[in-house]
């Protein structure tokens, strides 16, 4: 290998793309590195703040804890299990939705996004109401039927994996669906011409070609579940199953002067694990050309006729949607009508009223919080997606080592456990004039959840052949014009996915909000936390449903605009 070749891999390409790469590295780096640097400083400092004299004591204490090995093992099982559940389910739903003639397609989009809109803590509580071993509704039903031996205990590792997998399903779905819908039919047709069945074609052609998207989904869910706290807290703690996030919580919660530096020291292992995963992902998808499916020739996704399997599969999806949407949302609605937690009964019926709804709506802070959350959701997601388009373009199309750096940077804040990264942002923002303003929230949201925009867009970019851009350049168009006229129209499904993931995330964002929000910049999540801390599940559920309605409206508008835009560009 020549020396010149090696150098060219490290340095960004000269010219406009090289400049863009560096500009993005600086911007994304600034957004994501600052809070992490503060946490690194905190983890090496004595005392409780980011700046203190240097010490290794926090690392030594954190990593010599004899309980850590068991916690890491639990964490691996929990995150890989959740990623498997989410990815397999998302593949199944995305395939049926984009590639087959299954009825009620419009339902799919909704099913797969709903868990993204429900505050995770509420989703967990509603599952505990259904499946707790003492009086979970489902277990009571089993007892009535004389099947108490079959009772399900949600406070267990399989329970945690199931719920986390369902909660992270939207991430996997929104990455896989655009990739599936941009699939080139000719590959599958060739397979069928050679005599392969639908199933064999799926296993030998479709899935291997989708490898970057599947891996992206799998890895993103692992990283997300590593940072997730709701499931470990609400379902893990009662079952005494501790993972990294709940271990970090224990460090912070024990005592009154929470040592976030030590929590950050433990968090560094989550960060390193995420970086390793990103590197593996890049290795596995290095030969980008293999996965290109949209060339300039005959791009049209094909529809597979399910024939006899149409109805059974539809029933299957019906069951999934029942479990995913109807059950938890029904439980939420039921809880929102009650003055306190009670099992359904005539007495419960007598107690039902709109009291919780009224007190939520009449709370003066609620209105301001709703307004701020909607503004942050729309504004933040729009800015975030624009940034993500550029970043994804560099990651996929430039593929220098600098692009690799950019990709890893985009994951920095995201892969830190939420409880800790909020404090990292606080330590950073307090040094700037943005502290205690809505801008701090906006920037923090975008910086932390950038992968939600970048992932769907990279998996969409991967499939667009560079011939298309080259043709555009040959015709005299510059980089920006090529992006706008050629690339972006093909990216619409990815853009819509990224926007939806970001907007719904921002509307329910909790971890940064509780640290950065101040009077005047309250957001819904802060209200949610107030209710949760006071154990007011009725009001919490009412506000949760309002949150779902707002997110549904945002998703509907985004999908509508996306469809309209795609039609105009094609037509």
């Amino acid at each position, binding site marked *: 290998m020549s020396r010149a070749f090696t150098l060219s891999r490290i340095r960004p390409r000269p010219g406009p793309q090289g400049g863009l790469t560096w500009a993005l590295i600086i911007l994304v780096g600034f957004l994501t590195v600052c809070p992490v640097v503060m946490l690194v400083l905190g983890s090496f400092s004595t005392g409780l703040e980011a700046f203190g004299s240097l010490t290794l004591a926090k690392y030594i204490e954190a990593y010599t804890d004899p309980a850590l090995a068991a916690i890491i093992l639990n964490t691996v099982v929990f995150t890989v299990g959740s990623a498997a559940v989410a990815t397999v389910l998302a593949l199944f739903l995305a395939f049926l939705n984009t590639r087959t003639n299954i009825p009620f397609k419009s339902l799919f989009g909704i099913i797969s996004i709903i868990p993204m809109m429900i505050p995770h803590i509420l989703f967990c509580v509603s599952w505990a109401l259904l499946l707790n071993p003492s009086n979970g509704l489902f277990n009571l039903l089993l007892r009535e039927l004389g099947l108490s031996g079959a009772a399900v205990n949600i*406070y267990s590792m399989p329970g945690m994996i199931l719920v986390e997998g369902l909660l992270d399903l939207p991430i996997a779905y929104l990455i896989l669906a655009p990739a599936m819908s941009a699939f080139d039919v000719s590959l599958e047709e060739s397979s069928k011409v050679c005599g392969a069945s639908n199933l064999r074609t799926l296993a030998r052609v479709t899935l291997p070609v989708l490898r970057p998207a599947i891996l992206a989904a799998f890895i993103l869910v692992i990283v997300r579940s590593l940072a997730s706290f709701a499931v470990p807290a609400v379902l893990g703690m009662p079952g005494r199953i501790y993972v990294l996030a709940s271990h970090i919580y224990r460090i912070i919660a024990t005592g009154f002067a929470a040592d976030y530096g030590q929590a950050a020291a433990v968090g560094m292992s989550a960060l390193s694990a995420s970086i390793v995963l990103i590197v593996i992902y890049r290795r596995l998808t290095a030969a980008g050309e293999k996965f290109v499916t949209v060339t300039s020739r005959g791009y049209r996704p094909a529809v597979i006729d399910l024939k006899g399997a149409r109805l059974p599969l539809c029933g299957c999806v019906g069951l999934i949607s029942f479990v995913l949407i109807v059950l938890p949302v029904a439980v939420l609605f039921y809880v929102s009508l009650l003055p306190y*937690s*009670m099992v359904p009964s005539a007495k419960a019926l007598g107690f039902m009223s709109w009291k919780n709804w009224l007190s939520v709506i009449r709370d003066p802070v609620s209105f301001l919080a709703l307004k701020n959350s909607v503004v942050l959701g729309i504004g933040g997601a729009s800015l975030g997606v624009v940034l993500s388009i550029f970043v994804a373009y560099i990651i996929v199309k430039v593929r220098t080592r600098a692009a690799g750096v950019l990709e890893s940077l985009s994951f920095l804040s995201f892969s830190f456990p939420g409880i800790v990264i909020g404090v990292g942002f606080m330590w950073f923002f307090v040094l700037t004039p943005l502290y205690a303003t809505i801008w701090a929230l906006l920037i923090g949201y975008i910086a932390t959840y950038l992968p939600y925009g970048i992932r769907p867009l990279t998996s969409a970019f991967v499939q667009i052949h560079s011939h298309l851009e080259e043709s555009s350049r040959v015709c005299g168009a510059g980089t920006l014009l090529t992006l706008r006229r050629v690339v972006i129209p093909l990216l619409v499904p990815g853009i819509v996915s990224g926007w939806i993931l970001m907007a719904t995330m921002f509307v329910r964002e909790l971890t940064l909000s509780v640290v950065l929000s101040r009077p005047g910049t309250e957001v819904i999540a802060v209200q949610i936390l107030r209710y949760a801390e*006071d154990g007011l599940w009725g009001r919490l559920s009412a506000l949760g449903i309002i949150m779902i309605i707002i997110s549904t409206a945002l998703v509907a508008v985004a999908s509508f605009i996306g469809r309209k835009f795609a039609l105009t560009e094609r037509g």
Partner: protein
Amino acid sequence: MKRLAAILVIVLTGTLASAADPALLEKARAEKKAAFYANITAVEPILEAFGKAYGVSAEYTRVSTNKFVATVLTEHQAGKLLADVVQAPLPILDILKEKGVLASYRPAAMAGYPAWAARDEKIQLFGIEYVAPIYNKDLVKPADVPRKYEDLADPKWRGKIVMADPSTHATTISWLIGLKEKVFPSEEAWMAFVKGLAANQPMFVNSFGPTPAPVESGEKLIAISMPKYIITKAPAPLDWARVAQPLLGTPRAMALTAAAPHPHAARLFIDYWLSKEAMKIMAEKVGEYVLAPGVFPPIDGMDKARVEPIRELSDDEIRRWGGEFKKIFATP
């Protein structure tokens, strides 16, 4: 009736406004607001009443207990502490005092409070975050209700208790240590109780907030929790076990900050907060146990209960005991 109440409020607040030092009031009005950091439920009626009485608004930022020290210290060190008044469990204010965050202020409104409530020249104590066994009165027969703490270790409660995780939750750890020091006759008797409680395999949650829900729904029968939920979660079938021994809890403290952006409004706010009227709102609406003389939460029997503050435990002590409880309760 409502009108009468409104007139009463106006008369009362009018009296209060006139009772405040006119020079302080004038300066406070010029500052317009007092910013207040705390983690306390439903205190909005007190803030509203304060605004109406003095024409100065009280701006409340709720900061979770486990982020309190981090948030206040970060802002303080950057010279950007937005709070004029801070309210938190006593150990937190002690940490802040040590770091130079607090200012001296001896409010006149403390007259009549127990002598120990005026802790020092900076920190005032106004309430106790009291802990008691709370049970589901629909499902627990009166004869079965615990009459002393030792009853919680009775094997009949196996799998039927919910509590905050005793290896991490500072208030629960302090409560268990309080029992050792103030209630049990000997360390052996106390240890037998703790081991008996552990053998009953209580379900753990991360704080007091999630403890009442499983008892309301019947998932569990008893919670080691706070009696104030009997008020805030009414009409839930909750009652407190009237144990023969005293109830214990960590003191709730408040203080003025040294670099308060609105120092006069802050003093006015502290004076009002400690007044009998404000404390009455807190006891009646939120079920808090307050130290203002003669004010009790409207919970049956609470006016006769002995409620005592727990000795302040250092974080090292809390972590050490958390580690011990982790072993005793056999959590990984």
